[in-house]
């Protein structure tokens, strides 16, 4: 067998061995963390713009911690550190918690900025039309803010796809760890790491396409705020 043939065979057999953890772990990890992250982000942004006193400082503290420390360190603390404190979590829940909280911290700043970019007059007009603060926020301000926040939030999602590879460090068998194991076995790191890189690229390309389609749909309903 020539070298080229061997590489080709390796690529074809390893493809499914990397793709399956991708479909079973990387993508669910990304999607679930992103959804939880968005919920956390929305709450974190809302308590800040609504000036709810105690919660506001708590939100700032949370954002400060999670934006200011490496995600890898956070993963190590939760997976390797917390058991020493008596809290034992499996690898996947650990990764979910860290990715959600991390996404929440970054996305909350995006949402806060987007909410603050909605002209102040929108809230005043809503209140004067007889609506409550909460009604105006959920029916008028947030839908407008979402449009502004959509492109940067898509960015966060695409970033998260790649960041899930960090979970390899805490024994989560996602795409990168799967590739790493095959590379160690076959002594073909160049081939395997390029292959897994291409798979990440594929997922991100699909997401970018989806983002463009969604943006077009949002665009049809008038311009963004600000």
């Amino acid at each position, binding site marked *: 067998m020539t070298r080229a043939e061997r590489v080709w065979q390796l690529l074809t057999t390893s493809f499914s061995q990397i793709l399956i953890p991708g479909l079973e772990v990387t993508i669910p990890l990304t999607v679930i963390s992103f959804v939880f992250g968005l919920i956390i982000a929305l709450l974190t942004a809302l308590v800040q713009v609504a000036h709810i006193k105690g919660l506001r400082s708590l939100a700032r503290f949370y954002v400060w911690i999670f934006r200011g420390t490496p995600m890898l360190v956070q993963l190590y603390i939760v997976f390797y550190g917390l058991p020493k404190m008596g809290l034992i979590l499996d690898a996947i829940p650990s990764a979910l918690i860290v990715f959600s909280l991390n996404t929440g911290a970054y996305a909350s700043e995006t949402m806060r900025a987007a909410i603050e970019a909605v002209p102040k007059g929108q809230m*005043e*007009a809503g209140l*004067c*039309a*007889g*609506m409550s603060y909460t009604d105006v926020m959920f029916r*008028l301000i947030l*839908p407008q803010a979402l449009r502004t926040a959509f492109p940067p939030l898509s960015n966060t999602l695409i970033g998260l796809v790649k960041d899930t590879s960090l979970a390899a460090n805490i024994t989560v068998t996602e795409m990168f760890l799967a590739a790493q194991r095959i590379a160690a076995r076959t002594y073909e790191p160049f081939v395997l790491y390029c292959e897994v890189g291409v798979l990440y690229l594929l997922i991100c390309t699909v997401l970018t396409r989806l983002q463009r389609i969604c943006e077009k749909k949002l665009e049809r309903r008038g311009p963004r705020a600000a």
Partner: protein
Amino acid sequence: MLLEINHIQKSFDNLAVLKDVSLKVNSGDVITILGRSGSGKTTLLRCLNFLERADKGDMLFDGTHYDLHAAPKSQIAALRKKTGFVFQDYNLFINKTALKNVTEGLIAGHGMKRAEAEDIGMEMLRRVGMAEKRDSYPHELSGGQQQRVAIARAMAANPRIIFFDEPTSALDPQLVGEVLAVMRSLAEGGMTMMVVTHEMNFARNVSTRTVLMHEGEIAEEAPPSEFFTHPRSEAARRFLSLEGK
């Protein structure tokens, strides 16, 4: 008496914007509030709807007493359901059609059924001549059209009074007329209105009373026929000579 404002005071930082303003408004009155910029007229309107919190003062509106500094949220919410507010820069809901701009408050604020709200909404749009634009978004409308929709929105819940904060100041000159015409027909229909404006002709021809504000106080209050021909105060004389009549 519909509205009685007593000794309202408001400062921003150390600048006293309203020094001690009292005013009475009867049902059906159309009161124009004139004055140079910075005289406190917009702040006065905004305090009445609690868009700004006054430092002091109270008011009696439609039989209810309000502390303009310390009124509780529930009271403010109830007050806003009985008043309309028209802004200088329209503030139409950017992501809603003309019709939805009118119905949103009826549905979410006043608990009305959608069908009923839409009937009222269409009726209001007809009255301001905007019925055929019901499905247009604000960015598809001219300034004058946006302001007419905003007036329809302010009228929709059948308020006891509508506050107008310089409703034509942001408009191109050729669009001012259509908005003033709508306001005039509202006034003729008996709506109680407080209008902060620079439109001297509107003040002269439509209002029942003219109030001149000067440095945070009411300098003069008179029917327009008197105000424009025999101003009593020095501030009014100077204001009228600067306004070119």
